[in-house]
């Protein structure tokens, strides 16, 4: 059995993000208490709703993606691969679903390790070769192993509570007398700030979970490069197949090569880290495996 290697930096960042979310939540709870509001009821409702979402999320996600659970006889190779990876990762065998879509994609869902589902699209099975698909499956299994579904649900719950609180704070003037427009502007700005902050924090947390899943996939398969190759293919980038001599030839055509997309501001709002950052992280894992 493989012992999970610990990435201290990643752990610290995750912890910090979760802590900040909690602080945000608690700060608003404190304000709430000081105002003596019955917003507790709203939170109970919100909590109940999130709990419901948590328990039925796998079914919701699967049906919204049009995924169909397949039996072992329907997809024997996929089952074999996943069960082998589960043996390495020490996970119970999840159910497997196939999405009838040509877009290359894969995801994992389910509230805990025993109720997990791993889904892949038909597109990804066509586009990737066996070892690359294995790396992607290992990535999704790491999400299950790390209980990401639970972590993200809790994080989303905390942020939604913070938002509810902001909207319902008594001095926000909901159904109450207002004397000045100035304080309203301030409070509106604060609530907007809370929303943006919690949004960014959740996205950041999600990106850290992705890095962790990449790392897990690298450790389970022992071959980080397979995931790199898979990520590149999924993103539509291909190493050229056109011969150098043809490209450099006397009658050379103009080649328009899609560059690796770079963005900086968008990174803050994205649930997945940029491809380059993921590849870089995987490369350093590859190097550490050798030395």
């Amino acid at each position: 059995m493989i012992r999970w290697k610990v990435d201290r930096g990643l752990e610290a960042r995750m912890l910090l993000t979760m802590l900040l979310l909690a602080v945000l939540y608690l700060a608003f709870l404190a304000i709430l208490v000081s105002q003596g509001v019955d917003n507790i009821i709203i939170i109970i409702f919100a909590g109940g709703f999130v709990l419901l979402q948590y328990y039925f999320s796998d079914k919701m996600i699967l049906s919204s993606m049009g995924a169909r659970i397949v039996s072992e006889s329907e997809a024997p190779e996929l089952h074999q691969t996943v069960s082998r990876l589960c043996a390495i990762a020490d996970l119970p065998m999840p159910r497997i679903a196939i999405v009838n879509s040509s877009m290359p994609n894969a995801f994992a869902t389910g509230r805990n390790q025993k109720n997990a589902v791993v889904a892949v699209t038909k597109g990804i099975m066509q586009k990737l070769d066996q070892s690359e698909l294995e790396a992607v499956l290992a990535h999704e299994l790491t999400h299950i192993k790390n209980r990401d579904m639970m972590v993200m649900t809790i994080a989303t719950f905390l942020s939604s509570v913070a938002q509810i609180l902001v909207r319902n704070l008594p001095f926000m003037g909901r159904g109450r007398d207002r004397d000045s427009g100035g304080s309203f502007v301030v409070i509106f700005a604060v609530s907007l700030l809370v929303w943006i902050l919690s949004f960014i924090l959740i996205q950041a947390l999600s990106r850290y979970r992705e890095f962790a899943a990449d790392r897990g996939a690298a450790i389970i398969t022992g071959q980080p490069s397979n995931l790199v190759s898979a990520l590149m293919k999924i993103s539509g980038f291909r190493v050229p197949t056109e011969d150098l001599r043809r490209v450099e030839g006397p009658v050379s055509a103009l080649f328009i090569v899609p560059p690796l997309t770079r963005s900086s501001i968008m990174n803050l709002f994205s649930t997945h880290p940029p491809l380059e950052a993921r590849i870089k992280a995987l490369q350093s894992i590859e190097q550490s495996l050798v030395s």
Partner: protein
Amino acid sequence: MGFLDSILGKTRLPEAKTDRLFAISTAAVTMEANLGLLPDGQAGLCIKPMESTYYESARKEIEDLLKLSFQETGTLHAIQKDEYGYIWVVLTDPDFEDLVASIQMISQILIEQGFGTQLLAAVYRFRGEATVYWIYSFKLGSYYPFVPKSGKQRDTAMEFRLRSIMQSELPIERDMAKWYPMWGMPI
């Protein structure tokens, strides 16, 4: 190409960069230790085709240079033309250091003789689980890996692995869109 040259429409090809060509000789040690790859005793120098009338004289000139150069080292050499019309200088020597030194020397001589802009690539072959090529582009001044599979397919996972592991020792081309393969090389 300078700004004035491009304004005036004077096309000048970039000069061949040979300064980082040597890096492969130390990298070979790491490649054997970490990847189980061994030099396969062959390397090639790929030269752009020229006007056909010029080709024969160029070929003869290169041939003479080679004969003179390898009298002592005993490196075997052959000159071939490939399906794209490119000239290949194929070197065979079981000693990898000699092979690298020979490639370096020939490319240096060719540059001195005015063939610099015609130099396309130097290629080294390694063997392990699969055949691995390291292609040095004289234009880019950097190396990149090429691992062919059957049916003009590339083993990209292996190529990425080579990059990850060799990055610190070999100047590897960062822009993967420039990792052009060379199919059916004479080495």
